[in-house]
Structures are given as C-alpha cells and as structure tokens.
C-alpha cells in the first residue's frame, strides 16, 4: 500500500483499550453444519469500537460479516477468544444493544406507533410513558402523520424509518446494523443515511454497521474494517478522517472521499474476487 493518505490512515490492530464499547479479541467461531462438517465462520478476529465511534465492516459475501454482530448480541458464542461489551463479557442479550436488521423485522400486525412503543413496553415502561416516547421518536423520523398506519401501507423507506425509531427509542449504547439499507433504492438510501447520522449524533452510541457497499462504509464511518474472504478475519483497518457533520448526497463527489474509497477498494478487490471464484467453484 503505497498511496497512504492522511484521510485514510491504515491502523495496526492493537490490543483493545480497557474502556472500549465493544472489544472482540482473537475470536474464532466454528460450528457443525447439519450434514456433520465443521465450518469456520470467522477466525482470529480482533476488533474494537471506542465509545461513540462509528465502525463499518465491509467484506465479500459470506465472509462472516453478520456473524460479528451476532457475537456482540450474544446470540452466537465464540469457540475461542472473548467478546466484551462495555467492559463486561457477553452473557445474555444486553439492554444496551439496539439492532437494525436487513430484512423487514417490523411487526406487521402492529401500527407504526405500536411498533415503535414495543421496546419500552417489553421492558416494562408504563403504557402512557411508552406511547409518549414513541410519539416523540416517530416525530423525529418525520412520520407523525402515519402513526396509525400499518407497515404494509408504508413505502420501504418509511418502514426503515419506523425500524430506526423502534431501535433508537431504547437509546442503545451499542447500535448494530446488518446491511440495513441494502434493499432501498439509491435516493432513499442516501436519505436514510443522513437520517441515521442525524439520530446517531444526538445519541452518540457506538455503532457497528455491516455493509457490502464500500462507499456507504466510507461515507458513514470513523473506522472501516476490511474482512478477508471466508473464513473471515480482519485484513486491514482504516481510519476515515472526513469532517462531520457529513452530507450524504454531496460527500460522494468530495475528492478526498473518492481518494479514500479508491485506496480501500484496492485492498478489498482481491478478497471480493477470491470470494466470487470460490462461490463459483462451490456451485459446480
């Protein structure tokens, strides 16, 4: 890597500081497939996210990007190594965590306001307080007119706004996002990225955002993790020093942005090619 720039500083993976929001240390995850083979999903994986930091994870298809998120939620347990959230080892689903899914995970039988109020209600907040809070968050994502609508009556972008409000209402200290905007069209996605950065700057959660879209990663993140083709491990880490607040619609034409994206793409490209050629071999 000769073309190092000030904006995309390549970091060396170091031992995580004690006060990191998320610390994944030297984790390997294997599991037995239904037909009895041992599969390694990720190996020797180390990643730290500082408090209030926005980290993006990019990598070829099937490299274990989503696995890293499930390690943080506790839905998956590492085979070796350890995962700490806010300094504590992960044992159960933490109340500090919010998760935005790739697929539509709203409850279709609940109206917008019932969906957004779900989190506080599950956690035992009194009904009135939960609905007041929900109304507030629906207002923040600009859907006040649609409180009583059901998800199927909304567009894909609006449903994502509801999903964001549903997650942010719990005020998570850790925000995990699994390709949340990949099903949206370009314009809606840009709008949602702005929406996300707006909400995030108000809350200052620590974010892990998984995406296959490098430009999205560079535009949003403080730090980009590039993963190798599966079994995934961290290939390199870049710090993105683009100034905030960022405007998604404009940042794509920023020369500094383009330069950073090029540098990281050079790194990512061979992994993507490797991942694809393996995919082709596997299907034959």
């Amino acid at each position, binding site marked *: 890597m000769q073309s190092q720039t000030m904006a995309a500083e390549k970091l060396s993976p170091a031992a995580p500081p004690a006060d990191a929001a998320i610390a994944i240390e030297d984790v390997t995850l294997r599991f037995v497939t239904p037909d009895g083979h041992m599969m390694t999903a990720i190996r020797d994986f180390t990643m730290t996210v500082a408090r209030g930091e926005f980290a993006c994870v990019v990598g070829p298809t099937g490299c274990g990007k989503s696995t890293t998120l499930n390690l943080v939620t506790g839905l998956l347990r590492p085979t070796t190594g350890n995962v700490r959230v806010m300094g504590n080892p992960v044992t159960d689903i933490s109340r500090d965590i919010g998760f935005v899914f790739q697929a*539509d*995970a709203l409850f*279709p039988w609940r*109206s917008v306001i019932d969906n957004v109020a779900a989190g506080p209600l*599950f956690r035992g907040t009194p009904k009135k307080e939960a609905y007041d809070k929900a109304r507030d968050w629906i207002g923040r994502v600009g859907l006040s007119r649609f409180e009583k609508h059901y998800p199927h009556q909304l567009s894909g972008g609006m449903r994502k706004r509801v999903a964001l409000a549903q997650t942010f209402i719990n005020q998570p200290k850790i925000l995990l996002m699994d390709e949340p905007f990949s099903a949206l069209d370009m314009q809606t996605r840009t709008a949602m990225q702005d929406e996300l950065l707006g909400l995030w700057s108000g809350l200052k959660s620590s974010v892990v955002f998984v995406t296959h879209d490098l430009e999205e990663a560079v535009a949003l993140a403080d730090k980009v993790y590039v993963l190798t083709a599966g079994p995934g491990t961290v290939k390199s880490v870049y710090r993105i020093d683009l100034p905030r607040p960022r405007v998604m619609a404009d940042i794509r034409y920023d020369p500094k942005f383009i330069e950073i994206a090029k540098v990281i793409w050079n790194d990512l490209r061979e992994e993507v090619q490797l991942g694809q050629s393996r995919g082709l071999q596997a299907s034959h």
Partner: protein
Amino acid sequence: MTAISPTDQAAARATSIVAAEAQARARLRKRHALVIGLRLAILVIFLGLWELCADYNIIDPFFFSSPSGIWEQIWSWVTEGTSQGPLWLQIYVTLEETFLGFVIGAVGGIVAGIILGRNKLLADVFSIYIKIANSVPRVVLGSVFIIALGLGMASKVALAVVMVFFVVFANAFQGVREADRAMIANAQILGASPFQITTAVIIPSAMSWILASLHVSFGFALVGAVVGEFLGAKQGMGLLISTAQGAFNANGVFAAMIILAVMALVVEFLITRFENYVVKWRPAPFNEQGA
C-alpha cells in the same frame, strides 16, 4: 444540458381524466351486475330443469326428490314441526353440539400447536403419536363415543372435538414454526421475554394460519355432530336425516341437507367477519381490491 418543460395542457387533461374514471366505474358496475345476473340465471335454470325432469318423470322424484317437494317438506317442518319435535329445536341442538365441539377442539388445537411449536423436544417426542392419532379414521370414533358417553350431547361434542382438533393443531403448529426469525430476534433484542415473544410475535404471526383452519374445521365440527347424531341420538338434524332415510323420504333428506348447508354458510360468514376484524392489519387480497 437543458431542462425540458412539458407543455401545459393541465386543464384539458383533468376533464378527460374525470370522464375516463366515470367510464371505468360504469364498466365495473356493469360487470358486477352481469356476474350476479349469470349466477341467478344458473340457479333458476338448474332448479327449473330439476323440477321439469321430476314432473315428466325423466328422473324419479321418489329417489331424487324435486325442488317443490323439498320446499313443501321444509315448509311443513317449519309450520307443523318434525316427527321429533319443532324444527328450530333440531337446529338448535345440532348447532350447540357443533359449537361446543368447535370451540373445545379449536382452543385445544391452538394451545397444543403453540406449545409443541415452541418446544422442539416435545414436538419431536409427540409428533409420531399425533401422526398416528391423525391417521385413525375419526368418524369411526363416533361409535366409541356413543358406547362410552351415551346417546346425549356429550358423544356428539366429543366427535366434533376430535374432528376439529387435528386440523387446527396442524395449522397452529405450522404457523408457529413459520414465524419470521428476524422478527423474533428483533423482539428479543428490543427486550421481550420468552413469554412476551410468544404473545407478541408467535401468536399473531400464527394467526393467519389458525384462522384459515377455522374455516375448514367448522365444517368438520358440523360433520362430527351430524354423524354422531346419525349413529344414535334423541334430537338433532342428523337424526332427522336418518329418520327420513329410514322412511325412504328423499324430500326429507334433501330438506335437512339444505338446512345444514344454510347453517354452515351463515357461520362461515360470521367467521369471515371475525377474521377480517382480527387481521385488519393485513393488506387486502388482490382480487378484493376495487370491488
């Protein structure tokens, strides 16, 4: 690069749109009237042909009855009562057995389906027994119930219950299994306890499956009650049919059949109303849009 602006003919276009909409609505109304008219025509032709064939002895009304004969039979049951008491009492008895069987069987099926759907071990252990129980021809159980529970209501209700239970159970079980993984994970991370996941995610998402089975299983409950009465009873529509059959009264059999069909249709209508109320969050099916 120049921007191109469309020429402005908005007003003219608006009037033509209104006219086109009115035309389309008129076409829809016309088509609706046509469908209703054709349905009525088919009914009239069918009944008319049946009546004519019976009148001219092309088919023997002794075996195959005739619309006028059936109507006379129903009318005499309504005005003079049946051989076993007033008609409304027979209907009431059969409906009561059906409803009791339906409710007990459906509730049992839903509860069992959700418990087994949520618990993998129980499901693996019990699935074999449910398969075996389901493969027993259930109508035969009617005889067992009559022996064990007597000629009263209990034996009919029991038969209706076993008719309903397995259908509802299978659907509830499937519905629980098909509950969306992402949705469950979402609820879990939002803070739901396992019980809250069951009530807030599993049951609502299994609801469409369960409701679908309720449509079918009400018919089954009715079959259970009527067959039970057939096998031995003191009251009910099934007994009415069996008496008519014993007297070679084809009019009676057909008349009772039609009354049962009307009962089933009315309840089917009520279940549909209930379903639309419960799943009002669901998008309208495509064929009902614009109707």
